[in-house]
């Protein structure tokens, strides 16, 4: 059975993997179409830093009612909404508002969590999940991989070392793994494994 070629970055990546974003030899992963004897070498997903945008928005939405209340109470004239609505109705509106924020948070979290990039001893698998829309599972045999390209574009990706890895297969198909942590290491391992499977040790 092919093994991951020894790479000094393997340990580094293992240490840097945050929230299971880059797991080497993960023990807890099984997938639907896993063949007998097929072993998952790498489980990865987008770097957690990509969640910062929606987390910031959700934080703003959480504190927004408090800010509005403070501003309204600071106004020189009386603009109390309690004159028009009972406390119970205000409570219900608040409850619906915060459940909406919870929905936004869950939607964005599972959108990130269920986008998996798997490298096994036979193939690479890209599981893309778009909540409320679709999920897509694509795979390519390691022996069919021809070219792997990494690109790290932007200040934040450079700072946190994540980027895009494009895998070109023998057909016209192209896999794009977005926001992969340690893209250099990822590209190197995929290419090494592909060469190993083909028995090309040059």
């Amino acid at each position: 059975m092919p093994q991951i070629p020894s790479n000094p970055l393997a340990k580094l990546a293992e240490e840097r993997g945050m929230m299971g974003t880059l797991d080497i030899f993960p023990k807890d992963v099984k997938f639907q179409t896993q063949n007998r004897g097929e072993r998952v070498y790498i489980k990865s997903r987008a770097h957690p830093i990509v969640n910062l945008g929606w987390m910031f928005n959700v934080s703003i939405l959480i504190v927004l009612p408090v800010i509005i209340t403070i501003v309204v109470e600071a106004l020189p004239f009386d603009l109390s909404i309690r004159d028009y609505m009972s406390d119970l109705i205000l409570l219900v509106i608040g409850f619906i508002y915060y459940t909406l924020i919870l929905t936004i948070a869950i939607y964005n979290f599972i959108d990130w969590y269920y986008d998996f990039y798997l490298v096994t001893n036979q193939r690479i698998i890209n599981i893309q999940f778009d909540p409320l829309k679709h999920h897509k599972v694509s795979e390519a045999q390691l022996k069919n991989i021809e070219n792997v390209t990494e690109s790290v574009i932007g200040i934040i990706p450079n700072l946190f070392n994540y980027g895009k890895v494009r895998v070109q297969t023998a057909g016209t198909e192209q896999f794009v793994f977005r926001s992969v942590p340690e893209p250099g290491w990822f590209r190197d391992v995929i290419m090494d494994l592909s060469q190993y499977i083909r028995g090309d040790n040059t």
Partner: protein
Amino acid sequence: MSSEELEATVFAIFRIGAIFFAVLHFFVGLILFRQITTMKKIITTKAQRYILIVSLIHVILLLIAVLLVIFVPN
């Protein structure tokens, strides 16, 4: 139309809108929960059970929201 009637009409419209929104929101929560259970079949990880529990709590909260919107007095 008296001011009381106007107020009642505004509240009725407001309530219909709120019920529509809450029910729609509840269905969104249900679809998310269903999709998570589908993804559980596609790929299994350790943290999935916690995501399922959070999603289930979310659906229950949305159901409470629907009931509150329908039954809360003016």
